[in-house]
């Protein structure tokens, strides 16, 4: 089941089976001047990305899987097969009945098995330019993000890496970026549009104490920059040999982000745990990698507690305990706090309707009780 089963370039849609990966699809699309922009970093299966509502560095401009899945084919727990938007349907919009497609997007395989996904595809931008800008504080960097969005600049990627992350990134990738809170930005559009977006963004950064922009124009330079960002998890582990890391993921309204990151960083510093902070500030979403030595249970406990306090903080700021990584097992308790008992009960009733014997990915998202 690794085929691209339907491709309509002039309608900007494509339907794929579970074996088709993101990079495989983009390789197929590139000669047509098209691409699928949701980029979680890994070369993931697109149906898998549908099941987890994958996001990534491009979400600030192109959305997550939620905004880009038009239809799915589902095999239900009892073996019946159906299409969430109707068989073969691929209109860009619809008001026909319940939005079942988005019910399955992000359901982590608990409601049914996804055997096809119909995706919205986009024209490859005529010009893509990346830039790196260092700031005196994390707050300055996040403020710039808020201001860039408020200025209606259609920024394609805006990612934060704190000083801890930048140091590890430099060492691992043999780069020489400034070791300071840094924004990695990318602009997409026509040549004129990119130039004016970039100029405006540079002015905003400068106003907030940002350094001169370091630009990357050519494909290989941009790829090197984003690879350094995408590889950060491995970089963190390599920089701390023998250690593991708890990866956290919270998302809040953007205006709440500066406080959330500041409180989190202070918490991390006090605990003595190594914990670089980075992420998709354009979405109000950030991650930390809390490093612990598996031979020292007290370090793991500290890291766990940090993660827990972070999730609670995010919930208190009207945010979510998981922006991208899902509930799985680890965040079941937070889901209850986030949704409230009625929200959980409604989810369970949907689950009972579609999977009464609790066969599909049991033990995840909520308990069967």
């Amino acid at each position, binding site marked *: 089941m690794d085929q691209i089963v339907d491709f309509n370039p002039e309608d900007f849609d494509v339907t794929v089976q579970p074996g088709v990966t993101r990079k495989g699809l983009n390789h197929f699309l*590139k*000669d*047509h*001047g098209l691409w699928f922009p949701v980029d979680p970093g890994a070369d993931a299966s697109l149906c898998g990305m549908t099941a987890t509502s994958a996001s990534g560095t491009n979400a600030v401009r192109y959305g997550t899987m939620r905004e880009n899945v038009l239809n799915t084919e589902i095999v239900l727990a009892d073996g019946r097969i159906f299409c969430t938007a109707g068989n073969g349907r691929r209109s860009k919009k619809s008001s026909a009945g319940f939005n079942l497609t988005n019910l399955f997007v992000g359901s982590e395989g608990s409601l049914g098995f996804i055997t096809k996904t119909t995706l919205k595809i986009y*024209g*490859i931008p*005529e010009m893509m330019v990346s830039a790196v800008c260092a700031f005196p504080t994390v707050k300055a960097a996040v403020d710039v993000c808020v201001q860039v969005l408020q200025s209606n600049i259609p920024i394609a990627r805006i990612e934060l890496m704190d000083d801890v992350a930048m140091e590890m990134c430099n060492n691992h990738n043999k780069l020489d970026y400034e070791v300071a809170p840094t924004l990695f930005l990318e602009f997409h559009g026509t040549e004129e549009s990119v130039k004016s977006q970039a100029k405006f963004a540079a002015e905003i950064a400068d106003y907030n104490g940002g350094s001169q922009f370091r630009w990357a124009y050519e494909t290989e330079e941009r790829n090197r920059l984003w690879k350094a960002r995408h590889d950060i998890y491995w970089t963190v582990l390599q920089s701390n040999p023998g250690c593991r890391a708890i990866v956290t993921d919270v998302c809040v309204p953007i205006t709440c982000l500066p406080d959330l990151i500041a409180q989190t960083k202070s918490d991390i510093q006090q605990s003595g745990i190594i914990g670089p902070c980075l992420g998709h500030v354009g979405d109000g979403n950030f991650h930390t990698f809390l490093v612990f030595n598996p031979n020292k249970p007290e370090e793991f406990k500290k890291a766990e507690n940090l993660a827990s306090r972070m999730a609670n903080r995010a919930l208190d700021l009207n945010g979510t305990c998981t922006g991208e990584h899902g509930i799985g097992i680890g965040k079941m308790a937070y889901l209850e706090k986030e949704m409230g008992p009625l929200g959980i009960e409604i989810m369970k009733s949907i689950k009972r309707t579609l999977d009464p014997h609790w066969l599909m990915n049991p033990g995840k998202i909520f308990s069967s009780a």
Partner: protein
Amino acid sequence: MSLRILVGVKRVIDYAVKIRVKPDKSGVITEGVKHSMNPFDEIAIEEAVRMKEKKIAKEIVAFSCGPAQCQETLRTALAMGADRGIHVEVAGPQFDTLQPLHISKMLAQLAKDEQIDLIIVGKQAIDDDCNQTAQMTAALLDWPQATSASKIEAKDGSLQVVREIDGGLETIKVKLPTVVSADLRLNEPRYATLPNIMKAKKKPIKKLTPKDLGVDVSPRIEVVTVEEPPVRLAGAKVENVDMMVEKLKALGHA
């Protein structure tokens, strides 16, 4: 500098496709199989386009030899930034036995007819892995050659080229006109964008026959048989290091 660059682009089976040998062992299955531009040729086109953006080149001519579908490959080259295309149509059995020497003769003749200053081709095609066309073309034209290029700089009427060789990197200076073949690390090619694909439809593609270039494409080789590589044999597990050493000795390796 205001160079006119000729870039050779070959239509090959896409690198992501799993190759299947025909049951009669006469060749590989190409019917209904995805084809695309040879990746090294994409790098060649990208380099030419970058030279045009830097105002070192004034015109890029893309050339492809093969069946009618080569026009798609040429359109991709045009969408990436080439100005016009030349398609030398060769189809059927004659296409199956085309060799680098045939292509080199065509490139050499085109270089003269079109007043070319620089020929860039991919260092090899991913179907035959020959790595001969650039070298033969240079010899036919009596031009210098810079093969396996990983960096090209234009300096006062000549090119300084860094070549990837077995021992590492070699930097040479070649006078123009010259033939260059592109290696993997020369650049990362851009994607063709929708507006450029639209614009490319209007760019001209000239159609020629091998005869127009004075090239005889009758086969110089005969394909006897094409077979898949032998199936990998299963390995064996041993309990411990001593047993491994015994096994190695028994197999005559220690």
